[in-house]
């Protein structure tokens, strides 16, 4: 996977850099008119640029409008077309959570798609939100790159232009191609009714189908991860084979990896982009190796029960421990959150790696755009600390890092862990929070903290036990949400997405006007293997120091225990 990414990163990253710099690309002739009309629709004249506050306002206004539209779609589902199974609307609190989830590029799902959402809601609601929330994150990352590379101006570009270009030239073509490839591997794409069939034992079954390939493509590319089916990419209609499994893994990591090359090209220093890529890739490989080892060799509890060899609970026979660990590691290191196996059934250590991936701040590739700007926030802090350690002036890309930038980077990196720990604690100590938990003991703590960690970091993967919806029958008749879990999760996702965005845009706005100092003997090099090793250590220590206690009491206690059920 890393080799494929190494090959594709400069190609796609270079293409994206040309798109964002306004250069002509192969699709310009075909889509240039649409781009101009879309920009006019948003009231953007050619050359209009925004400072960080104007850019941030545009991000919030666009996202708020998207939130409202998605909530309305979900709550009026019963009267929409393309509802062959006649589903009713989901409850209000579930819809609050779902709208917040997809607008924040999280795709946390308290619902099962095939028993809750109509085709219209899946296509016009979920799929559209996946496109727009992803494009929002990419636009913010590009604005941050401009802040780091420009001099003498506080302008970061124009959000609406970056949004339209992300959608038209990058996401739509990629999603179209990916949907066709996935359909070719066996993923269904239809608007027909669910199928009725009898299983081998003669029991009547309803087999859910639908426009899966089109949603699956953007689910993976966008870093959203919200599956058409409840079991996500463990479902054979979302992920039919080993080939589709590999394609899906690459799709999850493709744009986040390519953003490092886009960064390198736009600042005119490609080695800086490769240094970020190397930092991410080494952590990804290390985490995946630990997760695989944990899943391939069982746990003390399984050994005590006489079960030896790989732990296959919660895993598809088609994929086994290796492809399951690789997929889940990719889904949690990348910001996508798609899974092809049940994380609740993973060993304590395996689930702990999934949590640790998110605890780094979703910077091991991370989401499209958000992975890059999250890493840049940590780089600013790392450069500041490294500068203090070796007695160099803290600067990055020739721009001096001062007190304001350090405060903004601290806000952007520490706010989300604070959200996770506060809401995770409330969830396990209050009766309202505990009604969502399935397991008790270390597993119960792990699944609760995992829920708020995944939501706050906008990942969206889940340990299956934590619930926010009670659904007696498919189609939402008599369904009701768990208000605490739905509302708390909704707030956590919105704050976890947009507070770091505001902080990083302010940081870019602060660095934009600053002059670029020439490279000298006293400059701390940030494009060397030494700096890569330093950043890996810095990110790991940052995550461990913030979350050590909960990692020990949750997944690691589970990993060391000899009871199968805690």
């Amino acid at each position, binding site marked *: 996977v890393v080799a494929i990414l190494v090959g594709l990163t400069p190609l796609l990253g270079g293409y994206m850099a040309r798109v964002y710099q306004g250069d002509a690309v192969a699709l310009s002739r075909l889509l240039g008119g649409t781009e101009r009309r879309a920009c006019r629709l948003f009231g953007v004249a050619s050359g209009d640029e925004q400072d960080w506050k104007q850019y*941030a306002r545009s991000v919030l206004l666009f996202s708020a409008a998207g939130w409202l539209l998605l*909530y309305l779609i979900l709550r009026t589902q019963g009267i929409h077309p393309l509802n062959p199974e006649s589903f009713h609307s989901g409850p209000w609190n579930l819809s609050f959570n779902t709208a917040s989830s997809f607008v924040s590029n999280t795709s946390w799902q308290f619902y099962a798609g095939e028993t809750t959402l109509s085709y219209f809601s899946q296509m016009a609601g979920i799929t559209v939100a996946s496109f727009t929330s992803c494009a929002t994150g990419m636009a913010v990352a590009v604005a941050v790159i401009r802040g780091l590379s420009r001099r003498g101006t506080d302008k970061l570009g124009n959000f609406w232009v970056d949004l339209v270009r992300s959608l038209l030239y990058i996401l739509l073509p990629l999603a179209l191609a990916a949907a066709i490839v996935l359909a070719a591997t066996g993923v269904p794409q239809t608007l027909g009714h*669910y199928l009725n069939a009898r299983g081998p034992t003669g029991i009547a079954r*309803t087999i859910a189908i639908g426009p899966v390939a089109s949603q699956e493509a953007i689910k993976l590319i966008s870093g959203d991860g919200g599956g058409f089916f409840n079991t996500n990419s463990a479902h054979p209609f979302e992920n039919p084979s080993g080939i589709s499994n590999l394609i899906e893994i690459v799709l999850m990591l493709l744009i986040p990896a390519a953003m490092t090359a886009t960064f390198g090209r736009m600042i005119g220093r490609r080695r800086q982009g490769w240094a970020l890529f190397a930092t991410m890739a080494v952590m990804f490989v290390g985490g995946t190796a630990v997760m695989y080892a944990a899943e391939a060799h069982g746990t003390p509890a399984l050994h005590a029960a006489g079960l030896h060899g790989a732990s296959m609970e919660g895993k598809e026979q088609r994929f086994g421990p290796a492809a399951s660990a690789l997929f889940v590691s990719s889904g949690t290191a990348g910001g996508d959150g798609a899974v092809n196996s049940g994380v609740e*059934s993973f060993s304590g250590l395996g689930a702990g790696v999934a949590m640790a991936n998110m605890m780094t701040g979703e910077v091991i590739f991370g989401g499209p755009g958000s992975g890059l700007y999250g890493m840049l926030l940590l780089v600013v802090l790392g450069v500041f600390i490294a500068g203090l350690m070796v007695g160099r002036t803290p600067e990055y890309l020739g721009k001096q890092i001062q007190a304001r930038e350090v405060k903004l980077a601290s806000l952007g990196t520490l706010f989300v862990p604070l959200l996770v720990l506060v809401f995770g604690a409330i969830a396990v100590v209050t009766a309202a929070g505990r009604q969502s938990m399935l397991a008790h003991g270390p597993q119960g703590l792990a699944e609760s903290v995992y829920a708020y960690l995944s939501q706050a970091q906008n990942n969206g993967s889940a340990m299956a036990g934590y619930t926010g919806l009670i659904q007696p029958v498919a189609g939402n008749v008599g369904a009701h949400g768990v208000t605490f879990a739905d509302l708390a999760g909704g707030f956590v996702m919105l704050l976890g997405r947009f507070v770091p965005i505001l902080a990083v845009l302010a940081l870019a706005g602060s660095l934009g006007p600053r002059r670029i100092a020439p490279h000298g003997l006293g400059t701390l090099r940030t494009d060397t293997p030494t700096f890569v090793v330093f950043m890996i250590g810095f990110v790991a220590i940052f995550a461990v120091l913030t979350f050590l206690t909960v990692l020990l009491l949750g997944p690691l206690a589970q990993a060391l225990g000899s009871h199968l059920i805690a």
Partner: protein
Amino acid sequence: VTQVTQRTTVFTRSARRHAFSVRDLDDRAPKIQCMDIVAVLLGIISFAILYALIFGIDRI
């Protein structure tokens, strides 16, 4: 086993759903409840807080 059980449950529920699937449009029409107003207000308040935060962050 857990996953298989969960999936079986989903499909069993899906089969049961046919008892509810033949309903006229009036029955499925959305009924705007006071909790919808609460949810929309909560969403608007969330974004309003974030909007106000722009000015707070600018003072750092």
